């Protein structure tokens, strides 16, 4: 029943966020787990520190029992030493009492150490697994779960797991032990009265159970709101430039204020729901005093129990009522724990859909650099088809340029070669082997992309360039920077290669960022180097130098250049025009002669010395022809050369 309810809620929530519809159906998101599974999850991650955890709980049980010693000692002190005049017993009794406190607090500290170690170890294990998971997730995963949400899971949610492990568990043990010990002692004195007192317990449990039912969805909702806060704030921080450019500060404030208010409201709703139950539970727990007086008094008058017995009862009522009152606290924390644990578990077990196949080839040596697309079709989930039945081959050491209208799938080709996405049908092969039969690691070792949306890390320039290999020699870093025409401006920066650049490379101009990204890509010494519009913000002169450098790289590599400028592509061995999901391949001259799109672009960019235009309409849509055309001719020429 509960499970169904949660599922429904999950569905509703998913409908609300537009982005999550993106990959619906691709992956089943686990909605909710049984409580025992959550416990198992915690236990699983406690491994390595389980002894500490158990010892911590045992120590709790021991301290709970020790607590009972001192009230007894006080009784001796008052009755025997003070009233009875046995002064010689004073010092021993006091020593025992002080000793007990010392031992108790000592054990308590020891328990804290144990529990902290166990719980922190658990956190670390979970965090690392989550981090690892994130590192290997395919790109569509991040369209579904926003970074703010992942942050919520690794901070706020884990905090509730920690709280559960380092607090809820031992308080529960303390509660149960104290309660049991008290019951045992009291049953021994008067079973009837004890029974009368315990009769309250079922009501408390019933109340807690009802509360539990009521409040569980509230905590899930609070959890969601917390995540909204993180997502909202993080987007505002990341988009701060746009916010300012449009002077939308007030609008942003209002938007955030709404999220902030929702979080507050939900928290208050939960608190009020809680405050409706707590008094009842509290009252039921405290009613024990009333029952002790009423029933105990009557029994006493009856003569069934002695006055001393009654004193014992009144003195121990707390040992029964405190745990009972604690029940609601514990349940409250458990609810929070459950809401958070599900979120953590979801991302903990999120396995990437794109991963190494069984028996995937892990080529250690460099690729030769041949890339082939064989009847490849591709569409992003639910989106329109980007590539339809495309076939082409790039040969080792070639420089290939890709051009095409916005959204025609240029970046998609790069994404498919590096296997950031899998084809919908057909095959992508590197050196004749399907990329899906290679390990991702070996693909990424051989394929290096300077991405369009340049992401730099808040690290030094040196650290960013040597990203693929932090142990890289400085000399090599310089060399890569030089090849990318970045050395000059880097050296002009106040701390040169040791200048820390802000996240995403803010503070640098677009062209500077692109050049650092290119240096980073070159530093990987790839067999296939892909420049995804990496020169768009670089000035012409620098670009020319860059092109020269790329043709004279100190290592063999197939270079794929995605660009918009004729100047960036005209010197390539092959130029591929991507249009309406299909490809046309040629050289500058041949395309300028026959391809309408390319011809157009040339004219738009005022390219001179163009051959006469002889449109060859079939060329635009017939990949077959392309394959058998000059493509192979060039290939043979290459192989011969």
């Amino acid at each position, binding site marked *: 029943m509960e499970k169904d309810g949660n599922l429904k809620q999950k569905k509703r929530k998913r409908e609300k966020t537009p982005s999550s519809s*993106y990959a619906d159906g691709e992956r089943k998101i686990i909605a909710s787990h049984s409580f025992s599974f959550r416990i198992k999850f915690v236990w699983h991650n406690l491994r390595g520190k389980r002894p500490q955890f158990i010892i911590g709980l045992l120590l709790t049980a021991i301290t709970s029992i020790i607590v009972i010693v001192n009230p007894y000692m006080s009784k001796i002190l008052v009755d025997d030493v003070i009233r009875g005049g046995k002064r010689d017993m*004073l010092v021993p009794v006091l020593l025992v009492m*002080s000793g007990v406190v010392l031992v108790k607090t*000592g054990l*308590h*500290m020891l328990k*804290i150490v144990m529990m*902290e170690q166990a719980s*922190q170890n658990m956190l670390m294990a979970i*965090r*690392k697994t989550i981090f690892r998971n*994130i*590192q290997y997730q395919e790109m569509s995963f991040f*369209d579904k779960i926003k970074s*703010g949400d992942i*942050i*919520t899971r690794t901070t706020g949610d884990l905090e509730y797991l920690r709280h559960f492990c380092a607090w809820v568990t031992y308080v529960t043990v303390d509660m149960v032990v104290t309660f049991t010990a008290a019951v045992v002692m009291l049953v021994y004195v008067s079973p009837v009265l004890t029974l009368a007192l315990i009769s309250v317990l079922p009501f408390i449990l019933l109340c807690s159970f009802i509360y539990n039912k009521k409040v569980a969805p509230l905590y899930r909702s609070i959890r969601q709101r917390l995540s909204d806060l*993180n997502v909202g*704030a993080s987007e*505002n921080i990341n*988009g701060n430039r746009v916010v300012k*450019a449009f*002077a939308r500060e007030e*609008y942003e*404030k209002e938007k955030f*204020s709404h999220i902030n208010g929702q979080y*507050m409201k939900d928290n*208050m709703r939960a*608190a*009020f729901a809680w405050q409706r139950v*707590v*008094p009842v539970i509290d*009252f039921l727990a405290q009613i024990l*005093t*009333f029952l002790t007086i009423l029933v105990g*008094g009557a029994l006493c008058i009856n003569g069934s129990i002695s006055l001393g017995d009654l004193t014992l009862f009144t003195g121990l009522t707390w040992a029964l009522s405190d745990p009972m009152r604690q029940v609601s606290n514990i349940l409250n924390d458990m609810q929070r724990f459950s809401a958070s644990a599900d979120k953590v578990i979801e991302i903990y077990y999120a396995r990437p859909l794109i991963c190494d196949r069984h028996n995937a080839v892990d080529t250690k040596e460099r690729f030769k650099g041949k890339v082939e697309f064989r009847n490849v079709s591709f569409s992003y989930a639910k989106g*329109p088809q980007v590539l339809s039945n495309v076939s082409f081959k790039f040969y080792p050491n070639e420089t290939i340029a890709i051009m095409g*209208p*916005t*959204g025609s799938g240029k970046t998609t080709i790069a994404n498919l070669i*590096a296997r950031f996405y899998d084809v919908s049908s057909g095959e992508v092969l590197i050196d004749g082997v399907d990329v899906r039969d290679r390990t*991702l690691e070996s693909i990424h070792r051989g394929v290096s992309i300077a991405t369009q949306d340049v*992401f730099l890390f*808040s690290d030094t320039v040196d650290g960013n360039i040597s990203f693929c290999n*932090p142990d890289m020699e400085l000399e090599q870093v310089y060399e890569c920077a030089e090849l990318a025409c970045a050395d000059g401006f880097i050296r002009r920066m106040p701390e040169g290669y040791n200048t*820390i650049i*802000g996240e*995403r490379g803010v*503070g*640098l*101009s*677009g062209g500077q960022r692109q050049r650092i990204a290119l240096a980073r890509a070159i530093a*990987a010494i790839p067999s296939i180097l892909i420049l995804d519009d990496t020169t*768009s*913000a*670089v*000035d012409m002169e620098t670009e020319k130098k860059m092109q020269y450098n790329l043709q004279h790289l100190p290592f063999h590599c197939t270079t794929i250049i995605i660009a*918009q400028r004729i100047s960036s592509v005209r010197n390539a061995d092959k130029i591929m025009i991507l249009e309406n999901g299909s490809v046309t391949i040629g050289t500058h001259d041949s395309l300028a002669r026959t391809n309408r799109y390319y011809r157009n672009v040339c004219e*738009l*960019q005022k390219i001179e010395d163009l051959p006469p235009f002889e449109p060859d309409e079939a060329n635009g849509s017939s990949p077959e022809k392309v394959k058998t055309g000059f493509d192979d001719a060039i290939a043979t020429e290459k192989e011969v050369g």
Partner: protein
Amino acid sequence: MARNKYDIDEELEKGFDFGKLKRSFVYIKPYKWFMIGALLLSALSSILALVTPTLLQRVMDIAIPDGNRGLLTRLSFLTLGAILLSVVFGALRGVIMSYCGQHMIYDIRKDIFDHLQQLPFSYYDSRPHGKILVRVVNYVNSVSDTLTNGLVNALLDLMNIVFIAVFMFAMDVKLSLIILSGMPVLLVVIFLLKNVQKRANFVLNNKSSNLTAYTCESIEGVKVSQIFNRQQENMEIYSRLNDVYQKAWFKSAYLNNAMSPITENLKQLVLALVYVAGILLISPSIEVGVLIAMATYSSRFWQPVVSLANIYNNFLKTTSYLERIFQTIDEPVDIKDTEGAKEIDNIEGNVEFRNVSFEYEKGVRVLDNVSFTVKKGESVAFVGPTGAGKSTIINLISRFYEPTEGQIFIDGVEIRDITIESLRSKMGIMLQDSFIFTDTIAGNVRYGKLDATDEEVRSACRTVCADTFIEKMPDGYETGVTERGGQLSQGQRQLVAFARTVISDPAVIILDEATSSIDAETEKLLQTGIEHILKGRTSFVIAHRLSTIRNCDKIMYIDKGRITECGTHDELMAKKGDYYRLHNAQ
């Protein structure tokens, strides 16, 4: 401008003190009557809690020995009543406290977020975004309990201590002094521990903020990590940050847990002293009843002291969070409206730079004594090598930065004398990176004009030629996009960002590489749209594809922070200088 990265701790410029707690009273003040109410309710319920034992005593001493069932029933129902009242009071207090606490969280978070909106780019550029994020979300959440329950309980405990102390002294001065003798010891302990604890909390906050920052950045940069097979190294770094964090956590946790065992032992020692003194040292003068009473008082006196010690720990932790929060709220707003800055309704679009110099970092001149005038309706293009200062000029016009020297005028008014909001809302600025919000496509376009109708949105998209691809998407204009752009290609994102700028109907348009990722054909189509938009508006364009700028009224060649050439395309070509060289390179 010192930049921060994930493994560098952020130091606080100012000291670290309880003054911060005092400052937080600003947030408590609006709820002071609620707080006082809660305090009264708590006081009442603790008084009621004192009633029960006396009732119990009468049961033991009178009702039972006399066998008086009537009295027994009456007394037990009185107890029931007292319990009921105290439970109700307790619940009311709980409601009030969560009301206040949640509101305080809301207020603090609103303040910090609102302030962040005013901070300049340099603030965001100089630290990992994750470090800002934890302050807005996590830190704020951590302070409310101390500011509400912590405060009320502390006051209650203090009242309790005074109350009991009065009773003690009224009963026996000598023994009372002995009971009090533990206090100086406790104070010394607190004093000794205080600085270590503060430091430990401080370190812990830093480490946790580093960890979050790294997580944030790793998520944002995950594609790069995968391209370069960096996962293993990243995991090692993460692991290292985790280790450091864990160490800091243990230190802080152990130190914070040290207080209560110390006070508890002290309490026991004092109790023992009371007995020893009462029985052995000053025995003739002390009655048995008094001694027992004093022993009870002793534990009653120390109870709130122990609890205060715990609250004190929480205060320490909370101040370390407040410290960070206030630090952010206090972050100076470098660029703000000057006194007497005017709102402007309309901009003609005359722009003048008068001897403007600019440095991002002291001593490194990015712009060097730049002067030019642009008349209404003119279009100006900036060309030149990367890093020459083109984007900087644009950033100065829209006042994202202030010139280090010199002045900038719009329609003859210095831009410092115009309110930032009215200045920027008249400008359409399209930046290099086209940031897209998680929203629908229509929602993103509407960001430029919040009350735009659907037709306006569509027409803006038509102007920038974005309509074709948008209409091909499954949900058209209502297609959801994410911060990362999800299914949109870079070029498409630029078009959406462009539509967003167009819809805002600006008087001055600034295009910083607005079309770099857009293919030539679309750009051609776009050009017609752009020409239409630029008509009658002043515009500044940065583009590397010279074909996009050759029709501009003025082309300025920027090199090393100076304007080296200025004129129309034909003039500059005739001059055969830098521009000519650049042009021929294409």
